[in-house]
């Protein structure tokens, strides 16, 4: 048995990986060898710790020293001082992990982690995802064993229904009910599928689970197969997640090797196997029927429902399709019982939710909080607030399908129904924070550009409607907005929501409708006053030379490609607004900061 006295955990999620964590691991290995302690200290590559803002992250146990923003050149010091001599390298520690007495806080005392409850992310950052034994050590596959030997499919369904688990992909459909429908459906063959497409821009919850704890999904899908009566499963993962694909491939191979996938699992007569299917860059393939079309080899296009996948899904057979995060919760519910999940969250939304915090926030990264935590707590307590002391303006939840939540609703508890009531939605978990320097018209435009691009084109409301909405928004942002444009947007938006075939079209107008609802005055300013108060919409901005700062050096005039600046010595230069093309070259050139944009 290996007798390591210390474990060095290095984050190998995509974020830290792209900041060089693989090189950091290599350097640790060589430094440990040099000091002759490679048999005492184990270096482990784990999944995402969550605090992506301060990556690459390295945690050394047993002390629990949380090193942040580590570079390859920091490694020799950590090895020589901490691992050899036991002197923790204070200047490399994450600042919030030290208390007033300069002692190391335990992880759940660090402000970022204090309000979190890691359930779906329980193993991320703790285990090596490429080692099935470590998953097993932390109760991995124990739930599967319990289900196969002690529970009937009906009992599993009752457990899930009693727990109150709702789908984490965005719609929040009761999971137990979905499993029941698929179980009851008639079919000589059934399938289990996992939606790992995660197309929302800025969302990486599922990515981190797949990279950091792939076995939790495999175990849950096997449990699902047993419950609904399927012997084959598919994980549809987007090709833009190469690390997730690699870890899943390794995990599936290891599970097969241990007989946890394949024929006669754990000695019972239940057989189940999994295959990966890669996406190819289409957001619409995150929609369940489009996803299934893609798995079958067709162009990703949704179809009307009913029939729902539970009755008629993949290859025309009953199919259970759940999201990655939903699956990640299943083993814990089986092991701890439904009452455990009932004890977390709000009345109608049980359990926890993983959020990908991004935008104007200090602690960008991945967080998991119990349902019912308020937006204010997530943004200020967990997220560390807005950088630069700027004022909070809005938070977008649910990505391009969601809506903006303004400051007046900051104390809303996060919960499926309360978010829908204020015009947004839970969505898959993306949470983008915006401050006073963001323009809400521009934000709406950004999300709509995305959905217009990703529309599959099958139904006219989405194909044509969203395009017309985008044209209106572009018009407004370029200063050509007219009276009545806002009303047109609302009318179009509501019509598209009602008439679109699938969720993409049904939710594409949401960012526009919610920004109009809460920030109508910004739209009106753009249209009537041709003004963008956040200073974002280029066409509405003008470059001015401040008279009192101008020294008449003439550099700006020389730089101007449109010959729009004129002036002479001892007199302030002036920009001709008609001719100005708003390229900004003059502002860049001015050595006296005399040119401003407003």
């Amino acid at each position: 048995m290996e007798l390591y006295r210390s474990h060095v955990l290095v984050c190998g999620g995509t974020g830290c990986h792209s900041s060089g964590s693989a090189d950091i691991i290599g350097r640790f290995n060589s430094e440990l060898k040099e000091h002759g302690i490679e048999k005492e200290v184990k270096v482990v590559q784990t999944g995402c710790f969550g605090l992506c803002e301060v990556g690459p992250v390295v945690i050394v146990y047993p002390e629990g020293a949380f090193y942040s923003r580590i570079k390859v050149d920091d490694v020799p010091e950590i090895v020589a001082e901490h691992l050899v001599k036991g002197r923790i390298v204070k200047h490399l520690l994450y600042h919030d992990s030290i208390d007033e007495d300069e002692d190391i806080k335990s992880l759940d005392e660090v402000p970022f982690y204090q309000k979190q409850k890691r359930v779906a992310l329980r193993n991320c950052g703790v285990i090596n995802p490429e080692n099935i034994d470590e998953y097993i050590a932390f109760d991995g596959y124990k739930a599967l064993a319990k289900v196969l030997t002690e529970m009937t499919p009906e009992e599993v369904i009752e457990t899930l229904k009693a727990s109150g688990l709702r789908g984490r992909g965005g719609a929040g459909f009761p999971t137990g009910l979905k499993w029941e429908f698929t179980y009851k459906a008639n079919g000589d063959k059934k399938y289990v599928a996992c939606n790992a497409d995660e197309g929302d821009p800025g969302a990486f919850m599922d990515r981190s689970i797949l990279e950091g704890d792939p076995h939790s999904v495999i175990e849950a899908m096997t449990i699902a197969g047993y419950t609904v009566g399927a012997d084959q499963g598919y994980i549809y993962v987007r090709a833009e997640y190469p690390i997730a694909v690699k870890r899943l491939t390794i995990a599936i191979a290891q599970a097969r090797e241990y007989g946890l996938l394949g024929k006669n699992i754990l000695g019972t007569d239940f057989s189940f196997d999994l295959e990966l299917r890669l996406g190819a860059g289409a957001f619409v393939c995150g929609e369940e029927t489009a996803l299934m079309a893609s798995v079958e080899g067709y162009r990703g296009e949704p179809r009307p429902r009913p029939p729902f996948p539970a009755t008629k899904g993949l290859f025309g057979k009953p199919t259970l399709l759940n999201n990655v995060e939903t699956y990640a919760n299943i083993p814990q519910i089986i092991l701890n019982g439904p009452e455990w999940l009932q004890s977390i969250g709000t009345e109608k939304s049980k359990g926890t939710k993983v959020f990908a915090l991004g935008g104007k926030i200090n602690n960008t990264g991945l967080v998991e909080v119990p349902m019912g935590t308020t937006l204010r707590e997530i943004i200020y307590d967990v997220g560390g607030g807005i950088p630069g002391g700027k004022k909070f303006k809005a938070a977008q939840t649910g990505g391009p399908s969601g809506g903006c939540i303004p400051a007046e609703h900051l104390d809303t508890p996060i919960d499926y129904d309360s978010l829908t009531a204020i015009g947004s939605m839970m969505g898959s978990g993306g949470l983008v924070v915006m401050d006073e320097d963001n323009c809400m018209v521009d934000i709406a435009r950004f999300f709509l550009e995305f959905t217009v691009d990703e529309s599959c084109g099958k139904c006219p409301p989405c194909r044509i409607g969203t395009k017309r909405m985008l044209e209106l928004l572009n018009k407004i942002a370029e200063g050509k907005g007219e009276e009545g444009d806002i009303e047109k947007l609302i009318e179009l938006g509501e019509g598209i929501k009602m008439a679109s075939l699938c969720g993409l079209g049904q939710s594409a107008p949401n960012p526009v409708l919610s920004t109009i609802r809460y920030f109508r005055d910004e739209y009106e300013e753009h249209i009537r006053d041709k003004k963008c108060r956040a200073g974002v919409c280029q066409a509405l901005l003008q470059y001015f030379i401040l008279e009192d700062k101008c020294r008449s050096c003439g550099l700006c005039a020389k730089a101007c490609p449109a010959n729009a600046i004129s002036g002479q010595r001892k007199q302030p230069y002036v920009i001709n607004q008609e001719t100005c093309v708003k390229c900004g070259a003059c502002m860049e050139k001015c050595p006296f900061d005399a040119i401003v944009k407003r």
Partner: protein
Amino acid sequence: MKTLKELEEIRQRTLEEVNLRKDRKGTRVVVGMATCGISAGARPVLLAFVEEVKKRNLQHVTVTQTGCIGVCRLEPIVEVYMPGQEKVTYVNMTPEKVQRVVAEHLVNGQIVKEFTIGAVEKKD
């Protein structure tokens, strides 16, 4: 093809290896590993503690290191922190003495008085 029993065995075996990654509040054994400690032979003492704790399968005991505790002439020094009790400082430790400390103090709660700094200092 793994049976349920084999799965349990893997679980137990690996848990012992990865257990030190969980933040636990329990007994802490801190070995002084500064230059004074290392040159006095603290490393074998550290490894002896690790091995003995693992051998006896003691739960909630972490063995860690620290820098110079201060009384360099009495190195190797080991401090034992048990929750709710005062810290005990053992001095002039050797790998042979480790066994007694683990058996009597960590397992049975009886401080090995003769190895403590109080007892050693009194001798002079």
